[in-house]
């Protein structure tokens, strides 16, 4: 048991460390990046990794390391913005539908069934296709797709908590609905939401990178991992490093989220499986 516990803690520790390092690298990018990530230098195209360019250069002679470091800022911050927006929309809807039920609940559940019937990525591509490629439209599209997952999760958690004795007591004590939701339900469901969010942030990063890879998300010259991968596809035989490093960056970040999320999931029985 002890060995198992240690192993689990190691993966958690690894996940948190990796996550922290990546976020820290992003925050310190202006000081850590050896070059300007936007500086084009056509005479330095597709250089292999070297002392001056530790990760080599891309098709426009830009430093790949610098672009990856600045890419953390773009990719991860967009992911947090999307997460925040999704929660802002989902939290009130999830709380109200779960707490009160009734017609509103039915309406939102059918709406979510409709949203969740389509695979995330396909629906996101369709929405961006309608709205047009770009930074803002990508955020809108991902929020539209992801909010339903959060509503379903929050509603489920609220339904579960609603049956608890302490909540019945709270109702009998004359607390208002608003106060019950704020004081008694929200603290109970906060932890599972946090765990789900941690897991989901990795997924959101994959969606962002996927859309940018398809040319539907972040537009050049903004350093973003998906855009970097997209640019690298034409050079993967000639200069594989152009593709490897942004790929590793995405893998590392998503892995860190998975390691943290998985560990919490094992401890917390309230977190439902991905819907």
């Amino acid at each position, binding site marked *: 048991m002890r060995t198992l516990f240690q192993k689990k803690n190691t993966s958690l520790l690894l996940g948190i460390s990796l996550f922290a390092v990546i976020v820290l690298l992003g925050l310190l990018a202006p000081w850590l990046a050896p070059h300007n990530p*936007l*500086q*084009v230098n*056509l*005479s330095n*195209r*597709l250089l292999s990794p070297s002392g001056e360019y530790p990760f080599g250069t891309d*098709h*426009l*002679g830009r430093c790949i390391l610098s672009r990856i470091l600045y890419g953390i800022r773009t990719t991860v911050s967009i992911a947090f913005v999307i997460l925040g927006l999704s929660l802002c929309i989902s939290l009130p809807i999830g709380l109200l539908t779960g707490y009160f039920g009734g017609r509103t609940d039915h309406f939102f559940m059918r709406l979510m069934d409709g949203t969740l019937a389509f695979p995330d990525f396909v629906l996101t591509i369709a929405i961006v296709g309608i709205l047009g*490629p770009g930074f803002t439209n990508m955020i809108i599209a991902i929020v539209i797709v992801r909010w339903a997952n959060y509503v379903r999760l929050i509603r489920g958690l609220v339904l579960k908590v609603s049956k608890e004795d302490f909540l019945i007591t709270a109702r009998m004590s004359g607390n208002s609905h608003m106060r019950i939701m704020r004081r008694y339900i929200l603290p109970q469901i906060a932890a599972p939401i946090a765990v789900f969010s941690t897991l989901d942030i990795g997924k959101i990063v994959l969606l962002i990178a996927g859309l940018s890879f398809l*040319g539907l998300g972040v*537009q*050049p*010259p903004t350093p973003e991992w998906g855009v970097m991968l997209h640019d690298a*596809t*034409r*050079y*993967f*035989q*000639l200069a594989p490093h152009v593709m490897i490093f942004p790929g590793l960056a995405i893998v590392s970040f998503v892995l860190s989220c998975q390691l943290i999320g998985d560990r919490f999931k094992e401890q917390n029985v309230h977190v439902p499986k991905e819907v």
Partner: protein
Amino acid sequence: MNYKKKPFSLSFGIMVVCFMLVLAGCSANAASENNAAAANNAATASENANKKLTMAYTWNPAGVDPHGDDSWDVMRSGAGETLIKLNEQLQPAAWLAKEWKQEDANTWTLKLENNVTFHDGKKMDAESVKASLLRSIANSHLAKDLLLVKDIEVLAPDELKIITTQPNSAIISSLADPSTIILDVDSMKEAGSYPAMTGAFKIKQFTKDVSLVVERYDGYWGQPAKLKEVTMKFVTDGNTRLMALQAGEVDVATDIPIDSIELVEKDSKLEVLSAPSVRTHMVLFNMNSALFKEKANREVVDQAIPREAIIESVMRGYGTKAKSPFPEILPFGKVAEQAAGETTEQLLTAGGWQKNAAGMWEKEGKPFEATLLTFPHRPELSVMAEVIQNQLLNEGITVKIRKVENIDAELAKSDWDLAMYSMLTAHTGDPQYFLNIFYQSASESNVSHYVSKPLETVINKLNDTPATEARNALAIQAQDIINEDLPQSFIVHPDNVFGVRKGGNGLCSASDRILLCDS
């Protein structure tokens, strides 16, 4: 207009001739070759008699009707032929028409080859050619605009008279355009049937989105094709074409991505064939946009384009610097380079622009911010767009790149300032058509919305001038006006690049010569 809808599909320029000649096993036509070469060719011809060739082909035609949007693809398959072809110097030469004569300003007579048969076995005569030309004019806007035909008369079984609505000195070279491919009109009456044309190959099978298979036509009027069968697989992605060539799935890959040329060069089984083209990569200015109505702003962008660096690095030397729409390999492409004008600083300051605290140009609180469109079919254009974006950013100008799938549909809208574009500017070996469709104010294809009365006067004069020398001089004069007004910035005339399997079908040596001589 068909031409406008699919400008980038008119790719490869002169490469079309290469295709036809490669597929038709043209080495047998090389009369000037010495005996040793002829013996060698004969041996190769015998070896290749039953050989098949597979090609990874850039475009994905919707059909095989040459009188529509897919005429270039049919021409490249070696199945179709026109009355006239362009020779090595891009001058009109005899093909299905063996000679021609201008009777007056609006009338031309053409004498046809006598021994030509269509793929369905019928003999080609003046009546069938007339029916084919009338069909192409009815179905293809391009053919209609190029030929300006009023009437076609059959003078004899092998003689035809073409009367034009107005003097059309370019009609002979226009008859080399693939939209005028000669076919047996009766063969198109049955739904789903393939057109019976006159080329060395006939269509065996066309599968949409997959391939076009052509086989040797034994009744061909010229030298028979050396290959028994050719399969053109439609592979629109450059990397996939390259990988198919590397894996040995195909013998030839057209339009190899410039950055992958090194891989082909390094591979001992493969080789690169290249030839200059009559294509021009350019930046279009939207003359209706608030920013680029001002000539000074267009000059700023033009000066920021690092043409030499683009050719050396992005094009890896496979291209020549563009000074005008037409490349210098053409007699009407020898245009004097514009002298360097004022600096960006001087131009923008004179226009009332000021640099803000961030070092960016702004006017009345509005930053100099332009939208640049680019499209994925020619990947090098997107790289160039990023280079230009960076150069302008260094100058203090923000450029937002927008990648679009259908560039022509986007150009028809008004929400753009700059656009990367690519066109075959002299695919008929004559400047008239391009100048008319691209610069006449009434033309739908005038995508820059550029209006210049002096230029239109010169173009109209060119339309009415029959003498070649005078026409060339007028074309140069027109380009001087264009370069002065700067509705477009011309960047590079790219080379056509093929990747081929060495010795696969005895094609390479022949192709090499053809590629070079047809440039």
